């Protein structure tokens, strides 16, 4: 029982800033140590899913508990946190998670990508290039990229152990045979450091190339599935493809209606019931920064047309 003796000392520096009755950043230190050990192993074995003793969090499973546990275990009072969902800082889920850390850790939060030391995300990688010393934490619903091919953990674990990824390629190739192209549009599997096939989480494949040789550390947390995995900075991340069917990303014939960007991921917004729609940046901070610099988009809906993405 002496184990807790060190922890019995109250963390005075943090006490005033955080939620009464709870530890800094909610998790107890024992849990944080367990997650920290798992995180180090994840970093040491890029792309491998490390099982961990995921805890029940005060937010529902499936709503970012894995990312929250990872963030809670790494965050300190000097960190600046950014939380996005669908690329935006102002969606209710992002707001809610940011509130959680403001309440339990008292850390500074920001919407500005370049000001953040930790970015927790669901479904997007920011458009602004991430830097060394930044950490991006992905919320992951299903960490196993082979799950749709083989639902059994006992089997997929063996497949990873033997780097037996033939079925994955067969699956993608059948897709090509049937549709003429790979129809997977998000959660597009990648291979990390020429070894593990990894789920990038449900980011659009548009974001996949950003993962390759990224200067920032990428951590992935799946709370319900109890897995943590990682990609260290400057690590090769390759989207699976074939010589005759190279990997390609989405593109739009439109540009952002607000900031005029033609290189960002666009969300489609339906503006009336007569088929009018407009496209705006999914990354709300990227869009706002561009507008602040004087960039302007067409602003009005155009007739919808889709660009051939051959």
């Amino acid at each position, binding site marked *: *029982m002496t184990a*807790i003796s060190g922890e019995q000392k109250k963390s005075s520096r943090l006490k005033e800033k955080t939620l009464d009755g709870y530890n800094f950043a*909610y998790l*107890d230190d024992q849990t944080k140590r*367990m997650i920290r050990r798992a995180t180090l192993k994840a970093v040491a074995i890029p792309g491998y899913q490390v*099982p961990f*003793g995921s*805890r*029940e*969090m*005060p937010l*529902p*499973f*499936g*709503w970012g*508990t894995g990312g929250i546990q990872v963030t809670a275990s790494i965050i300190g009072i000097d960190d600046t946190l950014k939380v996005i969902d*669908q*690329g*935006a800082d*102002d*969606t*209710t*889920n*992002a*707001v809610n998670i940011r*509130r959680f850390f403001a309440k339990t850790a008292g850390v500074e939060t920001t919407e500005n990508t370049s000001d953040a030391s930790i970015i927790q995300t*669901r*479904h997007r990688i920011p458009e602004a290039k991430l830097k060394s010393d930044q950490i991006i934490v992905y919320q992951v*619903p299903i960490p196993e990229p082979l799950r749709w091919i083989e639902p*059994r*953990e*006992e089997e997929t674990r063996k497949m990873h152990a033997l780097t037996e990824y033939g079925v994955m390629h067969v699956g993608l190739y059948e897709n090509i045979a049937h*549709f003429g*192209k790979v*129809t997977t*549009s*998000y*959660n597009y599997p990648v291979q990390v450091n020429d070894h593990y096939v990894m789920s990038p989480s*449900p*980011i*659009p*494949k548009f974001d996949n190339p950003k993962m390759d040789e990224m200067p920032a550390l990428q951590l992935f947390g799946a709370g*319900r599935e*109890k897995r943590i995995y990682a990609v260290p900075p400057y690590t090769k991340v390759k989207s699976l493809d074939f010589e005759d069917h190279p990997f390609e990303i*989405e593109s739009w014939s439109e540009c952002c209606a607000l900031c005029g960007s033609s290189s960002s*991921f*666009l*969300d*489609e*917004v339906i*503006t009336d019931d007569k*088929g009018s729609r407009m496209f*705006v940046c*999914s990354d*709300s901070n990227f869009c706002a920064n561009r507008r602040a610099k004087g960039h302007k988009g067409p*602003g009005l809906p155009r007739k*919808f047309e*889709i660009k*051939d*993405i051959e």
Partner: protein
Amino acid sequence: MYVAVKGGDAAIENSQTLLAEERRGDRRVPELTLDQIKNQLSISVDRVMAEGSLYDRDLAALAIKQARGDIVEAIFLLRAYRTTLPRFGNTHPIDTAKMQIRRRISATFKDLPGGQILGPSFDYTHRLLDFSLVENSDSPVAEEASENILAEMPRVTELLDDEGLIEKEIDVNEQEPFDVTRNSLKFPASREARLQNLARGDEGFLLALAYSTQRGWGKTHPFAGEIRMGEVGVEIIPEELGFPIEVGEITVTECQMVNQFKGSATIPAQFTRGYGLTFGHNERKAMSMGILDRSLRSKELGEAINAPAQDEEFVLSHSCNVEASGFVQHLKLPHYVDFQSELVTVRALRKATTFSEKKEDSTGSKNVEGAE
């Protein structure tokens, strides 16, 4: 003109105020007290404690009140609280033979040492709405029995054990048991991991799967060897004392299922066990658990596996309602980035196919882009 959704903070706060108002309901009606919930909704309290994996009637009652009677939500509240509690040590295994019995029945023997004790049960009630409960009723007070119940009531499985008819209970290993609340489940799972998982598993899920085995989806031929409910002492052995001290008393329901087993190349025909245990009074759950514990032993006993209830990974990975409820409902969260990706793909695919169809069908009657 398009306006990005802003003010998430205010919206969340307003939603939560509304929720609190709905929870309280009509203010002319007196507010529920935790004592009322603990005493009069005791079966709900029991279920929340069992699946919340925390034996605390007050907290369970509070969770039920806060969750507006939504039992799965209450279980979630209790779990999220439980996970923040420090751990002082492991208790000694409880001894249900020393249970202060309130109910004990066996379906396998007409009479047995200790007797059949019906206790409080819905079993033989006629399910007729009792309109006398509409107004506060004067419930009858049960009379106390004149006969004493055996202090140590032998378990039916022990009676069979004497004759060697039932498999031996495997000795508890000396190692610290696997803890599903602290570790990620591994497959194949140990029996202790399986029992822990089932004990906190969703009652409805366990019930449906147990039922499926009775309808031929992995039949295990169960008999309710014994069901007992009552109070047992909980002991811990403090490191500095070295001997057990009782730290409290809990109500549990235990079910020992006895199942036919024709034997295998190495094992003669005998009965096999399926074990169920829950906090509080919950026979439906304890029995379902007993059936599933046994059906999940199919692989170990060399039986053909052809039904969901025999598939360990299927059952144990989907039994937790906190996980299931969260993941099903996470579909309420925005997915418009993924959906946008899909839109781009589907439109491209449609464009490709309509072009090729056009070549074949020169009438061009097909609607090219529905969206246009």
